[in-house]
């Protein structure tokens, strides 16, 4: 049974629809991410789960109970805020114990549970500190402990990593995953960072201008996006416009400039103008003409070296330049080409997706 059911939820503010008819089912103990560009409505969705906004239409069920209009302090969910919202005038221990104190938990039990929660986020030694004596990462741990000490059914996280530097972010991502497994409750995280969502979440909902575009596991989302937006938002993608000329059991046949008529596996119905999508890392770059697969010739216009990989842009005879990611898996890779060289790009038909234009 799902712990959270978001059914036909719409949220309208004056002049804009922040969330447009969203339907999401989140299973118990799931690490669920809501991903989208800023302004896509993901934070509004989270705030409706927390109770800071009420849906204009539709209903939200938490553990089978309709909480659409329940006050935030009456919901079995707790939130880690983007700014962490650690109370500045309280010690770390008082911060963590706050949620227990205000709900009438006895002082002794409050203290004990707060200390346990601090231990869980490895801050047991800092209980008497004030928040302004903590680093950003430590403050986030306080916010986490403060939310988890309430033993909520769902933990909501609003862009929790946005204020941390890259190294700390990676560390916290691992730690969040560990914590989620340890406490065994549902985590719902809102983020605009695709790496964050891909690396931590069990499932991801991608949102765009208020609508849920796709809900899938990270692998499915990356390898089988169902729209141009999702394909483009998650990772990089090369899009080649073409026309469907026929369909068979092997897939659809698409006529694309410079590629000719190619047949790619595609189960759904496709017609008229479409785009072929292929990820940069699925493309091979060679000097000689490849024997099989789909291939296209072009000239290297750009070469960005990243150490482990190189990102190369190749301009075909016409159309948009294509991105290729080359693994620098031998030390000699650097000699493989240079800006201005003529090269062949090739990839397999089964690595190609057909997306509506």
């Amino acid at each position, binding site marked *: 049974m799902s712990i959270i059911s978001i059914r036909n939820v719409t949220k309208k503010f004056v002049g804009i629809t922040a969330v447009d008819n969203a339907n999401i089912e989140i299973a118990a103990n799931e690490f669920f991410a809501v991903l989208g560009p800023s302004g896509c409505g993901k934070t509004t969705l989270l705030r409706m789960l927390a109770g800071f906004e009420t849906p204009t239409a539709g209903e939200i069920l938490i553990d089978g109970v309709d909480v659409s209009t329940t006050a935030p302090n009456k919901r079995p969910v707790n939130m880690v805020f983007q700014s962490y919202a650690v109370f500045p005038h309280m010690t770390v221990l008082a911060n963590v114990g*706050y949620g227990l104190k205000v709900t009438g938990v006895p002082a002794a039990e409050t203290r004990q549970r707060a200390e346990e929660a601090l231990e869980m986020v490895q801050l047991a030694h800092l209980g008497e500190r004030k928040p302004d004596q903590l680093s950003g990462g430590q403050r986030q741990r306080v*916010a986490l402990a403060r939310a988890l000490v*309430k033993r909520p059914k769902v933990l909501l996280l609003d862009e929790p990593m946005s204020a941390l530097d890259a190294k700390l972010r990676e560390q916290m991502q691992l730690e969040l995953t560990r914590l989620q497994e340890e406490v065994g409750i549902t985590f719902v995280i809102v983020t605009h960072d695709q790496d964050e969502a891909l690396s931590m979440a069990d499932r991801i909902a991608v949102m765009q201008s208020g609508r849920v575009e796709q809900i899938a596991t990270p692998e499915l989302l990356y390898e089988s996006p169902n729209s141009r937006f999702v394909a483009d938002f998650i990772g990089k993608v090369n899009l080649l416009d073409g026309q469907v000329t026929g369909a068979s059991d092997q897939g659809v046949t698409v006529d694309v400039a410079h590629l000719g008529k190619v047949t790619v596996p595609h189960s759904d119905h496709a017609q008229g103008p479409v785009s072929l999508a292929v990820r940069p890392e699925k493309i091979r770059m060679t000097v000689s003409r490849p024997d099989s697969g789909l291939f296209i010739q072009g000239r290297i216009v750009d070469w960005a070296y990243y150490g482990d990989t190189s990102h190369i842009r190749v301009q075909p005879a016409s159309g948009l330049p294509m991105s290729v990611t080359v693994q620098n898996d031998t030390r000699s890779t650097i000699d493989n080409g240079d800006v201005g060289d003529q090269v062949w790009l090739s990839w397999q038909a089964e690595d190609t997706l057909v997306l509506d234009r």
Partner: protein
Amino acid sequence: MRVPRRWVDPLDYAGRTWMRAFFGMVFILLYAPVVLMMAFSFNDSKRNIVWRGFTTKYYEKAWNNDGLIEAFINSLTIAAINTIVATILGAMVALLLWRFRFPFKSAYEGFMALPIVIPEICMGVAMLAFFSRIGWPTGMPWPLNLSAITIAHIAFSFPFVAIVVRARMAGFNRELEEASRDLGASEWQTFWHVIFPYMRPGLVAGALLAFTLSLDDFVITFFTSGPETVTFPVKVYSMVRFSVTPEVNAASTVLVVITLIVAALMLRVQRQGQADSP
């Protein structure tokens, strides 16, 4: 041997001689009159012009001046009531303006701040006209006879409190409030545990302002006070009309000391409050 020239940092103003001279002058102009007044309260002379020796007899004289003492007590009473009421009222107005949206909010905000910009003399005349028009009872027993002055003081000092508290609340992170609600606190608990502690330095500053505004107000008080309700500034004014005696100096010195003590106490509370906030 070369003596190294002392390097003066561009921002190290105190390192420049002309700056020090300027600072010194400002200090002298600000505090010399006050220091002089305090010094001459110990002067053993009626005329208060030439130093004739140390005495504390004018403190004794001021202490035995029943009219002066009564005015003094009146002033402190009015200031105390004014501080409490104006601070509560001002804080509530500040919260209203900070927290809620309602029609004609900006118009209300403007009207609320009017007492700050209206010339005091106009306020005084208006208060006088108002109280006599509605027939505010006079001749009531103490402290009810101070009600007109107190109401006038509250009317002009609460906007100052509101503005100070509002400015403080502008820096409040609304997520703190949401976090409190999220953790299970009611709105009332949220106010006392989260919003109020943040508001406190603003309240202290506002209260201090209200206290000193009331204590030394002359113009508005002059218009609203009757023969039986004389406050300290009004009393001093009437005494000075004859001559500035060391007695007035002595009473003023006591007032300055009381104000300083109150200010120091409140600043200490405020500093504690500020240490608690980011």
